[in-house]
């Protein structure tokens, strides 16, 4: 175990809610958490970036549509294009999709209602900065809390996601089986998270930062943060 701790930045946008928990999760899992601000001109030399959940800019126009123009996003894009690990959680996932760093889009849940509960997701690929050390088929219990988490994409993108193994997680039964009744928001292909071709940009609707402390709930987020920190450490 290296004494060196990877530095993980968490960007706070106006309307971010889960930046605090993301910072805590990084520290709890052994990283050094760095607060970043949406107006920052640089990323303070961090080794990984998290775009947290919340309702940036009040979800005006579309979720994530305005946040993508924040000053810090130019640097996030450069960092991502240089292979840096970037994780978008919930609203952060929506922002990465709006910014074109991940394929697809998130629209209102199939059932219209906001959903807030623990769900099970199945790991589909380990070729990402978030799923190293796991195995395809592993099931993780992580909470969701969103009104607009239904993943959609063009037919071509959905085919590419499947063909190129870009699907990270699917909503599943506790035993890992896929059945529509476990698809909590009606996402295409029950997709809960995706990665880019390089595997360094990842996004998911469930909240791993709320699932690292056994005292307050499920711990499905632990292996994901462990993977992110190890990817970040590789860049130190």
């Amino acid at each position: 175990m290296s004494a060196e701790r990877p530095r993980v930045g968490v960007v706070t946008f106006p309307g971010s809610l889960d930046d605090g928990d993301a910072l805590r999760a990084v520290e709890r899992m052994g990283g050094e958490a760095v607060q970043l601000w949406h107006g920052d001109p640089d990323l303070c030399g961090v080794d990984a970036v998290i775009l947290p959940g919340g309702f940036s800019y009040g979800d005006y126009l579309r979720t994530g549509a305005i946040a993508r123009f924040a000053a810090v996003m130019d640097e996030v894009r450069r960092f991502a294009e240089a292979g840096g690990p970037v994780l978008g959680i919930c609203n952060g996932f929506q922002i990465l999709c709006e910014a074109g760093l991940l394929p697809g889009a998130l629209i209102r849940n199939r059932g219209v209602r906001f959903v807030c509960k623990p769900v099970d997701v199945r790991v589909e690929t380990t070729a990402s900065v978030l799923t190293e050390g796991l195995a395809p088929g592993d099931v993780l219990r992580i909470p969701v809390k969103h009104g607009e988490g239904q993943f959609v994409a063009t037919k071509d993108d959905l085919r590419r996601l499947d063909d190129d193994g870009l699907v990270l997680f699917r909503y599943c039964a506790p035993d890992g089986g896929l059945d529509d009744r476990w698809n909590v928001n009606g996402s295409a292909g029950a997709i809960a998270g995706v990665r880019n071709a390089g595997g360094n940009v990842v996004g998911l609707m469930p909240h791993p930062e709320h699932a690292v402390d056994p005292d307050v709930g499920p711990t499905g987020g632990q292996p994901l943060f462990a993977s992110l920190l190890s990817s970040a450490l590789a860049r130190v």
Partner: protein
Amino acid sequence: MTAHRFEVLVSLKPGLLDPQGNAIEGSLPALGWINVRDVRVGKHIELTVDVDDAGSAREQVERMAEGLLSNPVIENFRILSADEAPA
């Protein structure tokens, strides 16, 4: 400089599930409207562009609609200029 007024109508692409439209459609029968279907919810954005030439004003609005006002993954848009738009 001339002011050119536009309306941009943004709609979910056909085939994409519209839960808001479905919810509205499901509520209309309560008011006695039992002959309504295909309810879709979209956005209506009004804006003014200050530029001399009407053609370049519309071209600017098209770029705004593609780049920000709509998300091409899930939405289509239609641009009406004040001249064409119903009063």
